[in-house]
């Protein structure tokens, strides 16, 4: 659906506001989801690669902006290969922990050394498999850059008693954004270290309040965890707004307006529904969250929206991403 409205106040170039929208439906996705699980089980996991691709294609294909949907282009066979290798490694790991601590140590060491490579490959694979309007995304992150930003920089945090944490997070996000490309253009982060400090300062204030509220008799036990959780929600919502709202792509800007309380409400009611339905409510919850995220995003673009060009790149294996998937080391936006 075209949701473009021209801004009468804009003097020269035509500027349009395009609302992101998520058109997926819980009922429709539920069917895809449950068939995914069924076939994954009866094929002893082989189908999981197709399941992942179909899930991603559903969510990408249901997310639309300026009349066009996103698309996910990965080939299930490619993902299956990566997944089999990762699975073999995981089985070796979980067996070695029981039978041979020495082998376990070696495998863990191999994993640690390979982690930056896995993360970098995962990020760029995911980016390259995403497209909009027949133009692909890409990420130029490298093994060295990932090692520096995600393994070296965090070491600074304990030495500064946590004071450097907002700076480190900001550096990480900036690294990811400025290496992200759409066609021939590169994203440009405009958020600053100050943005992250003020966000973390607010969250820190909430945490202090949480600590103090323990002193309130009876009600304190309820209020404190709630305040603590809202501090965490504040950070993830704030980062969403900073990263999407303060990143530019040539003549395109974004407006991210997620709010903490609605996000928390959706998050916790989702968890509740998933628990009460023994997991069957998960598709509904996923669709609901995707809808909320899309509702909070607006793309502001001039006519340059039509002028991105694609450049073809060589094929890339899914190995890195799948290793990252299984070992949960992904570092996404």
């Amino acid at each position, binding site marked *: 659906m075209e949701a473009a409205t021209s801004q009468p106040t804009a003097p020269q170039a035509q500027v349009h506001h395009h609302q992101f929208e998520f058109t*997926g*439906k819980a009922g*429709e*996705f*539920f*069917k*895809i*989801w*449950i*068939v*995914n*699980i*069924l*076939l*994954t*089980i*009866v094929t*002893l*996991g082989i189908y*999981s690669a*197709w*399941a992942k691709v*179909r*899930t991603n*294609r*559903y969510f*990408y*294909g*249901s997310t639309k902006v*300026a*009349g*066009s*949907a996103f*698309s996910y282009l990965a080939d299930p066979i490619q993902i299956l290969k990566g997944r089999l290798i990762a699975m073999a490694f*995981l*089985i070796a790991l*979980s067996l070695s922990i*029981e*039978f041979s*601590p020495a082998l376990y140590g070696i495998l863990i060491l191999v994993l640690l050394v390979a982690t930056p490579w896995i993360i970098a490959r995962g990020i760029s694979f995911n980016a390259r498999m995403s497209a909009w*309007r*027949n*133009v692909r995304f890409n990420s130029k992150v490298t093994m060295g850059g990932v090692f520096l930003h995600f393994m070296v920089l965090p070491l600074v945090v304990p030495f500064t008693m946590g004071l450097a944490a907002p700076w480190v997070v900001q550096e990480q996000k900036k690294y990811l954004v400025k290496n992200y490309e759409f*066609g021939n253009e590169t994203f440009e982060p405009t958020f600053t270290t100050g943005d992250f400090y003020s966000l973390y300062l607010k969250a820190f204030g909430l945490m202090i309040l949480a600590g103090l509220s323990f002193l309130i008799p009876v009600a304190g036990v309820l209020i404190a965890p709630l305040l603590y959780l809202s501090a965490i929600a504040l950070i993830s919502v704030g980062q969403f707004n900073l990263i999407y709202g303060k990143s530019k792509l040539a003549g395109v800007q974004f407006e991210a307006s997620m709010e903490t309380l609605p996000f928390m409400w959706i998050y916790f009611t*989702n968890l509740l529904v*998933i*628990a009460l339905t023994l*997991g*069957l409510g*998960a598709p509904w*919850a*996923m669709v609901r969250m995707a809808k909320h995220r899309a509702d909070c995003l607006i793309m502001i673009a001039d006519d340059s*929206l*039509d*002028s*991105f*060009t*694609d450049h073809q790149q060589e094929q890339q294996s899914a190995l890195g991403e799948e290793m990252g*998937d*299984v070992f949960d080391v992904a570092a996404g936006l």
Partner: protein
Amino acid sequence: MTTQASAVLKGIYYPAGSSRAEPAEIMVDTYGLIHPAVSSKHLGIPRCGMTEMKISTRVGSTPRQLRFPDGSLFETEDNDAVDQVLPPGGSGWFEGVIHKLESKARHVLISAAVIFGFIYLFMVYVVPDASRRVAMSLPPSVAVSVGEGTLDLLDDFAFDPSRLSAERKAELRQQLQELAAASGSEFTYRLEFRSSPEIGANAFALPDGTLVLMDGLEELAENDQQIMAVMSHEIGHVVHRHGLRQALQRSGLSVMLILVTGDIVSATNLAAAIPAFLLESHYSREMETEADDYALQHMQKVGLEPVHFANIMRLLAASHGQDDEDGMPGFLSTHPMMEERIERFEP
């Protein structure tokens, strides 16, 4: 090649290598050839046959992508019309079947039933049975290596040294050796003594044949036959390689959980952990029964009255009260079945 149907598809055309989006209409004729509609002639849409196109498979109601040989793209939400004009025998037949499966409510309900049935069968029968077979076919040295370091770990975190006299320890060790000799088991048995106010009266078997007797149990037992009854039960755990089987089951379960939940949001992993937890306790109950079977047979073989086992169980039940569910893989971790277990040893 001819197809029966022809169709007009409305959508958006994206020229190759650019983000330009042009609303367009294309026509697929009865020969499977694509022509731009009159209104879209100026867009430079290539003319070609459907068989030369790369057509994405159908996922729900998300837009369908038809890629031309030159890299340009036509995107349409008219999924049904695309299905009608698909060339027969294309590469997408597999996912076409998947889509049919996904779009019928009846199929979906059957899927759900099959999933639950399969998970149940797999976890309750396949995993325990497979781990039993594997555990019993491995050499005893493997079972031994599973337990390596366990006692050191328990010493660091849970156990205090025993206060029993050296003579008493020697006496009990002698009794264990007699029991073990009669069992003909291929493990080397060793008796260790520890104490712990939190654990109280209890006994454990490690996979390598080390039995740990807590001081509390020695104090609680009215006679040595009762302690030997407990030892017989613990030897049962060792002989049946319960430690190794538990390790294998846990690996099997975690692989299964990753397979099933790998593509589900992480929040549901929490829900998925609940059945896994229930199964763990189900498995360990099964193992207690197996160890009891072994103890019953073994006691009869060496001429110990089975009633001693019943007596020490009653004493243990009384000393631990009803609140003992500490999760230790020990002698008493299955309270609800206590009465049932005791009755089997009574004349």
